C-alpha cells in the first residue's frame, strides 16, 4: 500500500476499519468514513447503529480496539479529549455541556482561560467572545449567565466554544432537537457559513428533511457497520430510510382521518402563568388528533402543563366530558381522564432507576390499590404485560431498569404507564423526540389506533413532518396565544409558519 503524503487531495478526516467492542457487544465493526475539507457530512442511522460510539472515538473520549484514524492523510492517535481538540476535532453533544451558572465568556474559554499575571484576563475573554459570538450570529453579551439563555442560544455558545479552539472538524449530535424552527434556521446558516470558511461538519440527525437541506454527502450506519454513502444528487428521503432501516418504509406516515365523536376536552379562556396576557380556548373531540405547532417559546408546553395541573391556571376552565377539572393538581387531572406524556421523558416522565414494571404502574398505584394502601401487584403485572405486548416494548423482562432502554422504548414505557389508566384525553409533548425512524412509526400507528378507539389526542410537536402527517386539525401558537387553527385541507408548511410567526389567521 502506497503511503499517502499530506496533500491537498487527501480527505480531511479518515476513519479506516475502526472496530470497537464492549463486553459482549460489538459497537463498531470495521467502520469506514471519509470527510473532505469544507463539507457537511450527514451521519444517519437508527438508535444503536453506533453513531455515538464513533463520535466518541473521533472526539477522543474513547479509543478504537483496531483500525486507524487519519487527519490530512497522516495517522493520528486521539487518546484524549485534549488531543482531539489539539487536532481540531470538537464534539457538540446533544445534551449540552455548559456550566449554566457561569457566563457565556467563561463557558467559551472554560479550561483554556487566557491569563494575565497569573489571573484570568476577563477583558480578553470578553473581547474574544464577542468576536466568536458574532461569527455564530448570537447577539448576547459575553457576560450573560448561560442559564438565562434559551436552549437554542446555548447551542450557539457551544459552537462558539468549538470555534474558539479553531476546530477544523465540528461534530454536531442532533443539534436541532431542542431548537425552534427559527433557531434551527439560524443554525443552518451557521453551518453553511462554517462550510464556506473551510470547516467541515459531521452532522448527526434523525430529521431527514434537514439532512436533505444541509448535507453534501450522507453516510449511513446500521448495526455497527457502515452501510453506504449517498452523494449530493442521490440524497432522497426514501433512499436514506431504506439504507438506515434495511427495509422499505412508506414515505412518511400519512394519517387516515377517522370518525370523530363528541367533544371530550373543552378549554375556555385558560390563562397560563407563563403568558398571563392571553386566553386559550379550543376543544378536542373523541377520535381526533389535534397537533399544536409553533416556535419554541410559543407557550405550547406551558399550555399542556396548565391543562394537566402541573402549573396552576390563573383563570379559565378545563372540562373533560363536560365535567370541570380542578386546576393545579395533576391528581385531579388524572382522575378526570387526562394523561400527559411530558417533553423530557428522563426528568419528568420516568424514574430512570426503577424498572419497567414499577414505572408502568406508577400513575395507577392509588387507583388500583387494595385496602390500607397495599399495592395491587396483580394489576401492576397485568398492565405491564399488556403494555409490553401492545406497544412492543423491547426489554429483556419487566424488571429491567428503564435507564438501560433505548429512547424509543423509554417513551413506550411512559405511554404504557398512561394507557394503563385508560385516559379520555392523551396529551403528548414532543412524542417522538430523539427516537429513531422505526420507533417513530410505531408511535404514530399507536396514536392512530388510540384515536380510532375514541381517545382524544392533543400533541405538541416541533417537527413539521409530524404535524403535517398526523394532525386532523392543527392549532398554531405564537408567544402564548393561539394564532390560528388549520383543518387538514388547509394544512401546509407555509400556512403553519405564517401563523407561527405571529400573523393571526382564522380564529379557532
Amino acid at each position, binding site marked *: 500500500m502506497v503511503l499517502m503524503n499530506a496533500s491537498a487531495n487527501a480527505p480531511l478526516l479518515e476513519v479506516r476499519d475502526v472496530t470497537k467492542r*464492549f*463486553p*459482549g*457487544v460489538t459497537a463498531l465493526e470495521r467502520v469506514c468514513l471519509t470527510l473532505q475539507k469544507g463539507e457537511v457530512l450527514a451521519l444517519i442511522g437508527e438508535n444503536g447503529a453506533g453513531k455515538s460510539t464513533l463520535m466518541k472515538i473521533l472526539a477522543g473520549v474513547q479509543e478504537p480496539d483496531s483500525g486507524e484514524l487519519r487527519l490530512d492523510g497522516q495517522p493520528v492517535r486521539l487518546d484524549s479529549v485534549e488531543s482531539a481538540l489539539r487536532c481540531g476535532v470538537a464534539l457538540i453533544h446533544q445534551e449540552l455541556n455548559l456550566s449554566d451558572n457561569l457566563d457565556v465568556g467563561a463557558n467559551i474559554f472554560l479550561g483554556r482561560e487566557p491569563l494575565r499575571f497569573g489571573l484570568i484576563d476577563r477583558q480578553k475573554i470578553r473581547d474574544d467572545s464577542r468576536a466568536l459570538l458574532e461569527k455564530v450570529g448570537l447577539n448576547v453579551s459575553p457576560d450573560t449567565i448561560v442559564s438565562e439563555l434559551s436552549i437554542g442560544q446555548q447551542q450557539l455558545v457551544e459552537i462558539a466554544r468549538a470555534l474558539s479552539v479553531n476546530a477544523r472538524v465540528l461534530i454536531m449530535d442532533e443539534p436541532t432537537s431542542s431548537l425552534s424552527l427559527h433557531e434551527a434556521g439560524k443554525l443552518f446558516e451557521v453551518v453553511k457559513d462554517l462550510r464556506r470558511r473551510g470547516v467541515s461538519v459531521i452532522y448527526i440527525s434523525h430529521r431527514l428533511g434537514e439532512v436533505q437541506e444541509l448535507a453534501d454527502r450522507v453516510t449511513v450506519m446500521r448495526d455497527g457497520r457502515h452501510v453506504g454513502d449517498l452523494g449530493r444528487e442521490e440524497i432522497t428521503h426514501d433512499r436514506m430510510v431504506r439504507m438506515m432501516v434495511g427495509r422499505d418504509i412508506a414515505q412518511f406516515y400519512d394519517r387516515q382521518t377517522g370518525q370523530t365523536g363528541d367533544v371530550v376536552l373543552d378549554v375556555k379562556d385558560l390563562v397560563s402563568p407563563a403568558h398571563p396576557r392571553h386566553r386559550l380556548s379550543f376543544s378536542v373531540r373523541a377520535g381526533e388528533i389535534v397537533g399544536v405547532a409553533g416556535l419554541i417559546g410559543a407557550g405550547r408546553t406551558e399550555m399542556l402543563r396548565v391543562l*394537566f395541573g*402541573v402549573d396552576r391556571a390563573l383563570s379559565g376552565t378545563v372540562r373533560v366530558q363536560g365535567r370541570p377539572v380542578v386546576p393545579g393538581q*395533576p*391528581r385531579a*387531572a*388524572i382522575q378526570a381522564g387526562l394523561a*400527559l406524556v*411530558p417533553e423530557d421523558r428522563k*426528568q*419528568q*416522565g*420516568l*424514574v*430512570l*432507576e*426503577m424498572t419497567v414494571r*414499577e414505572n408502568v*404502574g*406508577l*400513575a395507577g*398505584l*392509588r387507583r388500583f*390499590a387494595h385496602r*390500607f*394502601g*397495599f*399495592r395491587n401487584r396483580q394489576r401492576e403485572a397485568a398492565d405491564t404485560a399488556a403494555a409490553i405486548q401492545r406497544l412492543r416494548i423491547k426489554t*429483556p423482562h419487566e424488571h429491567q431498569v428503564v435507564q*438501560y432502554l433505548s429512547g424509543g422504548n423509554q417513551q413506550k414505557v411512559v405511554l404504557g*404507564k398512561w394507557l394503563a389508566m385508560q385516559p379520555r384525553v392523551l396529551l403528548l409533548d414532543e412524542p417522538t423526540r430523539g427516537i429513531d425512524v422505526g420507533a417513530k412509526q410505531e408511535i404514530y400507528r399507536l396514536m392512530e389506533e388510540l384515536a380510532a378507539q375514541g381517545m382524544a389526542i392533543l400533541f405538541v410537536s416541533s417537527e413539521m413532518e409530524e404535524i403535517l402527517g398526523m394532525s386532523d386539525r392543527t392549532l398554531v401558537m405564537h408567544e402564548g396565544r393561539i394564532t390560528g387553527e388549520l383543518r387538514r385541507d388547509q394544512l401546509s408548511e407555509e400556512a403553519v409558519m405564517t401563523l407561527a410567526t405571529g400573523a393571526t389567521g382564522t380564529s379557532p
Partner: protein
Amino acid sequence: MKKNLGIVGLFAVVFLFTALNSDNFINAYNLENLIRRSSLYGIIGIAVSFVIITGGIDLSIGSMIGLVGCVLPWLLVAKGWSLTASLMAVAGLCLTIGLCHGLLITKLRLQPFVVTLCGLLFYRGFGRWLTSDGTQGFGRNYDGLRQLAIGKIPLGHLPVLGKFSLPVPFLILMVLAVIAAVFLNRTIHGRYLLALGRNEKAALYSGINTPRLVIAAYVICALVSGFGGVLFALDSNSIQPASFGNFYELYAIAAAVLGGCSLRGGEGSIFGVMVGAAIMQLLYNSINLLGIPTTLEFAIIGGVIMAGVIADELAKRFAARRRAIQQARQAAAG
C-alpha cells in the same frame, strides 16, 4: 437481599474474629447487651431511613432524643404528670417537630440539612432550659415502664450460652421493622416515597402529592426517633440534658447508609439498616473486649463504615458490568 450480602458478611467476619480472640464475647450477658443496644440504635436507624429515602436528611435526631429523654422523666417525676399525659405530650412534641421540618422543607423549600441542623441546636437548648440542665431520672416508681427498655424475655437454656433471655427492645424492633418493611415494599405510599426520592418531578407528573409525602416522612422520622429516645431514656435512667443522645444522629445515618440507603434518595432496605446498626454496636463491643485502646474507637468505626460503603459500591459496579455482558449476549442471540 443480594444487596445486603456485603454487610451481613462483614458482620459475620467481625463476629467470628471477636469470638475467636476473646473469651468474654460469647456469653449470655454480653450478647444480650449487644442485642439490646443494636435494637435501640436499629430503631432510630429505621426512623432516619424514611427521610433519607426521600433524598433528605435529619441531623436533629440526637437532640430530639436528648429532648424527649429529659422531658419525659421531667414531666413524670418533677411535674407529677400522669403517664398517659406525659407520653401524649412527648408524642405531640415529636409530631410538631416533624411537621415543622416537613413544612419548612416543602413549602419554603429550605434545605433539609439546614433545617435539621438548626433543629439540632434548638431542641438541645430547649431541653436544657426546660430542665435547668438538671440530671433527670425515673426514680424507682417506673420500673414497670422501664421493662420496655431493660426487660428481657427468658428463653431458657441454650447451647453454649446457657441461660439466655431475649431483650424486649429486640421484639419492639422486629415489630417496627416488619411494619416499616411492609409499608415500604407493599403499599402505594412506600412506592411513592421511593419514586419521589429518585425523581421528584417524575413523581409529580405521575400525580403523586409529593409535598404531603415528604412531610409524612419527616413526621414518621420524628415520631419513631422520639420513641427510640423514650427507650434510650428508660434504659439509662440518668439523663443529662446537655449530652444525652449526642451524636446519635450520626449512628442512625451510618446505620441507614450501611444498610443501603443512598443519600441521594430512592433506595433503602429495612433489614440492611438493622444489620448496619448491629455492626456498629458489635464493633464497639469488639474494641472493648479485644483490648484495643478506646481512643481508637471512632477511628475504627469510621474506617469500617467507609470500607463497607466502598465495598458496596464496587460490588454494584461489578454487578452492573455482569448485567451488561448478559444483556449484550442476549441481544446478540435474539
